[in-house]
């Protein structure tokens, strides 16, 4: 079980107070990690990042090219543009930039979170995130 549902619940419970920023850190020895990152950024280019992000979390690990194209269709993307983006690896520079940032931060696993810069590694429980977020909101109000 991934951390996706926990993050979803946090975004819902702290609506307006929290924002999520997603950076790619695909592991190079997994078959579909890179193409899945390309897919979510291709969806971003068509204004549907969040829809694709959530769909990939739901469908993982079924992330081969044909499945990704199916998901793109499901959320109503322009398929020609999407497929071109995948096949030309249009967003590789963005992915590489994120990976370099991850390396510079000494990150060798996923997921890793930075909550106002405070590092949280792995699939932590909701309460663990909640405690840090509550502290940050309190600090902000001081």
């Amino acid at each position: 079980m991934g951390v996706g549902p926990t993050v979803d619940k946090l975004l819902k419970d702290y609506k307006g107070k929290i924002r999520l920023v997603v950076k790619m850190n695909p592991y190079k020895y997994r078959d579909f990690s890179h193409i899945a990152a390309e897919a979510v950024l291709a969806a971003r280019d068509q204004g549907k990042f969040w829809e694709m992000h959530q769909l990939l979390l739901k469908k993982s690990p079924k992330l081969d090219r044909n499945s990704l194209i199916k998901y793109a269709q499901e959320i109503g993307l322009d398929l020609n543009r999407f497929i071109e983006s995948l096949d030309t690896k249009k967003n590789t520079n963005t992915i590489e930039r994120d990976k370099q940032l991850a390396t510079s931060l000494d990150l060798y696993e996923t997921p890793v979170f930075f909550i106002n810069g405070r590092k949280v590694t792995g699939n932590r429980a909701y309460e663990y995130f909640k405690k840090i977020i509550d502290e940050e909101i309190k600090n902000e109000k001081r």
Partner: protein
Amino acid sequence: MKLLVLIIFLLTVSVSSAQEKRFEVPVGDSPGYGRANAEVTMIEFIDYQ
């Protein structure tokens, strides 16, 4: 006495949380969800597979 202990405890907690290491992670033009000026920014490094 109890009050004093409580005060010391609270001071310790606030000092230790203030000292926790914070990393500088640039948001850049990365995609996400929620208001850009939200009080809390959570950056996730993800691998979808």
